[in-house]
């Protein structure tokens, strides 16, 4: 009897610990306190931009506190579905099954476009290749082309780099480049494709390794890697604000924020501010392409 008492005691402590460790911090409607909080999480592509926005917005609105974290689009949307964030950042549109899951959890995802982004295909500056067709990139990533000499480069093996599967960029690249936009295609990344946990990891490996090919949001591309011009039937085009806006660069996408239902209160104020010219200036500064009204 005494022993079971002790076990019960521990169980209580253990359970109390569990309860304490699962917060649900969506307290944006808590108006009784002076500080108001917005939880913002998701896409690693968007995280720097979201941080810059949050910092500036908090400067102008000291009563609002915004916490921003990355982890990938999948992570952000999962957090929205689980009701632990107010805004989820996403570098791809939400999937049907994610909407279904959210609905089952009593969450109604609301989509807001906040910026545009081009996906740059990058190689080491030593690599003589300057341009590829989408078809070539697709074959490279499927492991059908394995040497740079097959696409006009030196006799070197190709090392394909990709983001992890929880990245919206990964999913976008799979659908738009590897499968060339064909919804029925079942083409996959080659098993040999390296899945790196961060954008920085990809940039670092491409910078150091003349065999590597990688892809990343244009906002992440630094001076010390080479961006390739891509051709999807309309000539080789380098990514830039202009070629994204006139839709000639083949792999550009919209970046989103998702909220539970149409944004209300301070979240609405924040989203409206993000669409302002002042906030969109950060988009340009960080190498993304500003959101244009009416999208």
């Amino acid at each position, binding site marked *: 009897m005494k022993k079971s008492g002790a076990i019960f005691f521990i169980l209580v402590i*253990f359970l109390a610990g569990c309860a304490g460790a699962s917060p649900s911090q969506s307290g944006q409607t808590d108006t009784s306190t002076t500080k108001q909080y917005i939880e913002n999480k998701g896409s690693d592509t968007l995280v720097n931009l979201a941080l810059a926005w949050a910092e500036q917005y908090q400067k102008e609105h000291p009563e609002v506190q915004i916490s921003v974290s990355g982890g990938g689009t999948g992570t952000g949307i999962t957090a929205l579905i689980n009701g632990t964030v107010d805004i989820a950042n996403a570098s791809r549109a939400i999937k049907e099954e994610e909407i279904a*899951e959210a609905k089952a959890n009593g969450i109604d995802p609301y989509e807001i476009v906040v910026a545009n982004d081009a996906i740059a295909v990058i190689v080491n500056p030593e690599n003589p290749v300057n341009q590829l067709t989408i078809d070539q990139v697709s074959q490279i990533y499927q492991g059908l082309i394995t040497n740079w000499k097959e696409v006009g480069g030196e006799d070197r093996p190709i090392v394909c780099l990709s983001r*992890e599967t929880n990245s919206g960029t*990964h999913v976008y690249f799979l659908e738009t480049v590897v499968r060339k936009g064909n919804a029925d295609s079942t083409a996959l990344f080659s098993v040999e494709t390296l899945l790196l946990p961060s954008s920085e990891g990809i940039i670092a490996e491409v910078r*150091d390794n003349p065999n590597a090919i990688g892809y990343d949001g244009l906002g992440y591309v630094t001076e010390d890697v080479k961006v390739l011009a891509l051709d999807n039937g309309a000539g080789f085009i380098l990514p830039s604000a202009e070629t994204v806006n006139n839709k000639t660069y083949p792999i550009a996408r919209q970046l989103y924020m998702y909220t539970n239902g149409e944004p209300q209160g301070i979240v609405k104020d924040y989203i409206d501010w993000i669409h302002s010219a002042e906030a969109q200036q950060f988009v340009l500064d960080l190498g993304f392409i500003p959101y244009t009204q009416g999208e």
Partner: protein
Amino acid sequence: MKDKLITRIIQIAGFSSILIVLLIFLFLLREGLPALSEVSFSDLFATRWYPIEDLFGILPLFSGSLLVTFFSILIAIPFGVGTAIYIAEVAPRRVKEILKPMIELLAGIPSVVLGFIGIVFLSPALREWLNLPTGLTAFTGALLLALISIPTIVSVGEDALNAVPQSYREASYALGITRWQTIWRVTLPAARSGMITAVMLGISRTLGETMAVMMVTGNAPTMFKGIVSLFKPTRTMTATIASEMGEVASGSTHYHVLFFIGIVLFLFSLIINIVSNHFSEKNRKDKEQVVS
């Protein structure tokens, strides 16, 4: 009365760890076993891991973990055991006083820092020296993991050597046997069970390590295809759980499969523990026989 209270407190502490391990195991089973009914057996033990297309073959992750752990321990054993012998048996007092804290310091370096060094220095260097397509390989991971497990092997191994009674060595010297022969034929065999425990702890540490491995092995879920696989990217079970746990919706198939991988890891550690226990038990019995 006080005595009783203290006994009780110690008892609670003892039971709590058993209870927690049990609860964790039950939780793993509850979250992981549904994977067996959601994914057919042949799909689960297939060779392609690509969860966003519902390809849940865990074999490549399995082979990745084994490959990295095996080679890392192959590197760590000679260095770890050698260092332990040097510190315990050979090194002069002054050297010992410097070496020991240094090794302990190595144990204190967070694995993410080692991983960073791996990305910035080790992986480019290996690529150039060995002329590999990329430096993010199983071998890079094995090297880093060896660094992580060496301190464990050294400190447990050194304790085991120190526990060998001084009279054994004196008896050996008295027979005119040299120092190396004494270490090799007397001290090491006497400390065998402790050394095996040291190595087993090293293996557990290696198998469970996540961060450093995730950063340097390239995480491509390739199957083991002989020794060449060592110099190719690979993906371990721990790295898979760490990088994908954040994305999965709780209750989904992917989520259950990740927990299933957790069960596999748990069973691995269990086997390692049982093996190491078996050896130390056996050794203790052998010794008792000698004494009687």
